[in-house]
């Protein structure tokens, strides 16, 4: 059992939980994730570790409620527990002094880019951060990101806050600015966003790292559910990644594979809503 110590709401359908998980906290590095199972009949699903405190023996998870398991997780309160947490899984993000780096996060991906940006800043990089959301109320971790970066751009699709546009718009501005050299780009977010960022940096040949989020089961290389194609080769994202060279990733395949259980996920979610009488409007 892994106890929840803190529960916070960061935005509409975005929640933060702090778990007691000393063994995971001791080893965790930025970019790694855990696989979690809520109860006996629950599924195993991956969530990135947003933060960890090895001394306190805790890890922080930030997630968006998108389906049955994440909504169910969101209903848990401090004092509750989940049955299983295993990790820290996946290869840590490669952190070095690269020079000027851009860290980009979209939606709940901001929670995942945050520890990476922090580590890059601590490693002596100049960090420009670009975080995006559909609208103002969906912007999360703005303060944290400001501290993790030297310059922060916040974009909203509807212009209700910050820069009106997509995260790729400020990115392109920076890339076009001949006074500004960019040594590496890190991006975590929805697949279309990661693909757009890859396409934006490709002509400039700037190394670009994305963190992939395929369907997983065990998270230890035992099942191959998490297969992705990188540079024409099949990789298991849970052990070979989740970070990969964005210019080599077959995003099309990733998108398709993410839809495998779409119908079942919907059914599961509908049933849960019925049973729990939870009314959730689409935001």
């Amino acid at each position, binding site marked *: 059992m892994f106890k929840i110590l803190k529960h916070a709401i960061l935005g509409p359908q975005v929640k933060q939980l702090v778990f007691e998980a000393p*063994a995971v906290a001791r080893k965790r590095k930025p970019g790694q994730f855990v696989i979690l199972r809520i109860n006996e*009949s629950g*599924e195993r699903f991956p969530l990135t570790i947003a933060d960890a405190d090895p001394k306190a023996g805790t890890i922080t998870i930030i997630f968006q409620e998108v389906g049955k398991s994440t909504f169910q997780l969101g209903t848990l309160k401090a004092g509750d527990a989940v*049955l299983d947490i*295993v990790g820290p899984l996946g290869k840590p993000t490669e952190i070095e002094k690269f020079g000027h780096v851009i860290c980009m996060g979209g939606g709940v991906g901001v929670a995942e880019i945050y520890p990476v940006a922090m580590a890059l800043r601590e490693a002596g990089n100049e960090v420009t951060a670009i975080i995006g959301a559909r609208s103002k109320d969906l912007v999360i971790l703005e303060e944290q990101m400001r501290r993790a970066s030297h310059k922060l751009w916040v974009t909203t699709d509807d212009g209700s806050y910050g820069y009106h546009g997509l995260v790729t718009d400020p990115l392109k501005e920076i890339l076009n600015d001949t006074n500004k050299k960019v040594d590496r780009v890190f991006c975590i977010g929805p697949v279309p966003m990661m693909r757009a960022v890859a396409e934006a940096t490709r002509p400039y040949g700037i190394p670009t790292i994305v963190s992939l989020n395929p369907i997983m*089961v065990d998270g230890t290389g035992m099942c191959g559910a998490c297969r992705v194609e990188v540079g024409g080769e099949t990789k298991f994202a849970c052990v070979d990644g989740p970070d990969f060279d964005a210019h080599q990733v077959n995003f099309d395949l990733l998108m398709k594979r993410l839809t*495998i259980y779409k119908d079942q996920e919907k059914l599961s979610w509908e049933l849960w809503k019925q049973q729990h009488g939870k009314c959730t409007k689409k935001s």
Partner: protein
Amino acid sequence: MAKKIIPYAVPMPEQDPKERIHNFNEVPLGYSPEMAIAEANRCLQCKKAPCIAGCPVAIDIPAFINLIAQGDFIAAYRKVMEKNVLPAICGRVCPQEDQCQKMCVMGVKNEPIAIGRLERFVADYAMQVGKTEVPQRLRSTGKRVAVIGSGPSGLTVAGDLAKMGHSVTLFEALHATGGVLVYGIPEFRLPKDILKKETEVLAKLGVEIQTDYVIGITEMVDELLDRYQAIFIGTGAGLPYFMNIPGENLNGVYSANEFLTRNNLMRAYLFPQWDTPIKPSRNVAVIGGGNTAMDAVRIAKRLGAENAYLIYRRSRAEMPARDEEIHHAQEEGIIFHLLENPIRIIGDEKGWVKEIELIRMELGEPDESGRRRPIPIKGSEHTLKVDTVIMAIGQGPNPLLLSTTPGLKLNKRGYIQVDPQTGATSKKGVFAGGDIVTGSATVILAMGAGRTAAKAMHEFLK
């Protein structure tokens, strides 16, 4: 007085194939006491007892069968337990036809004694009447041992060393113990309740069980060596192989490990009561000829496939699966495509499997494995309409632990190199056994390796 020969074994009652393809309940139903006594009475009680030599853990087979014949089932159970602490499991999944029953004198001219069925009978009987026993634990030695992996090899080592008085911690990557027994072998062949009951003994012996703990990730072997005086590695051969043919990443292509794990460990067949889904499919092709393939194809049938195909590149004779399972699969209407091999998987525009292209094979000269090498027949390509493809072509060693353990010597095939007499690895105080040493083998061989290592570890700890 010479014994009257009864040529045929007492048949085991089974669920009707027509019914069982709609459920996940166990297929063979087990002997009744009368059946067990009748079968036990067929045994010739040979003085030399070649069957014992055929058993990897050397159960005193004639002795336990004799006790059954006398109607003392609990004594028979105890006799088996002297050598095998997981008899309800082994009685169900051991390939007896290649082991004890192969050596049975009766089997030369007639059907061999159904030793596996009798072993299962005594174990089930003891469970039913609540007479299973927790073996005696010797006085604590104060020595600490870590066992990595909770498959049959790890379970055996943990049980044996705990009995000898050592303090044992069992580390398991998954959320449940049992290894292949829990994630690979389906409910209809090995009910999870049986597994649970047989492994509960460990907890009663004081073994500390730490699930959700991946050695090589959550903690390293070298770190464990600071806390434990000896370590056993029994991590199995859990890395799934794919064929590297076009179309293998299409939606609807699974490794057998994924398909089996979803169904057995995660109970996808109970979706949506249980959360883990599996995509319903009408036409399923399973590639391979081993137990894994047989389990996968029989699950696919139970999940409602109209056509469940088993595609194997050699012939029936070379199939590594147990005879009983092949037979059960045939009874259940599995369609065998023997001497055929996939060359490509074809998808639709949305990225889903639509067809599989196969090529016919013929058998040539024997290869290193001693089996005749399959050779493709040019121009025999043809396609089969399928919506799911499951690759059950074998597994290898998972590198997570191996690549993070400096000084651990591997063999040419990437498995851990050990001294076969002791299970000792190249690293002091570290022992290994089971599939991570031999490659995919059997439950009983993994248990045997565990037993050998436990003895050597006990010596080492003195």
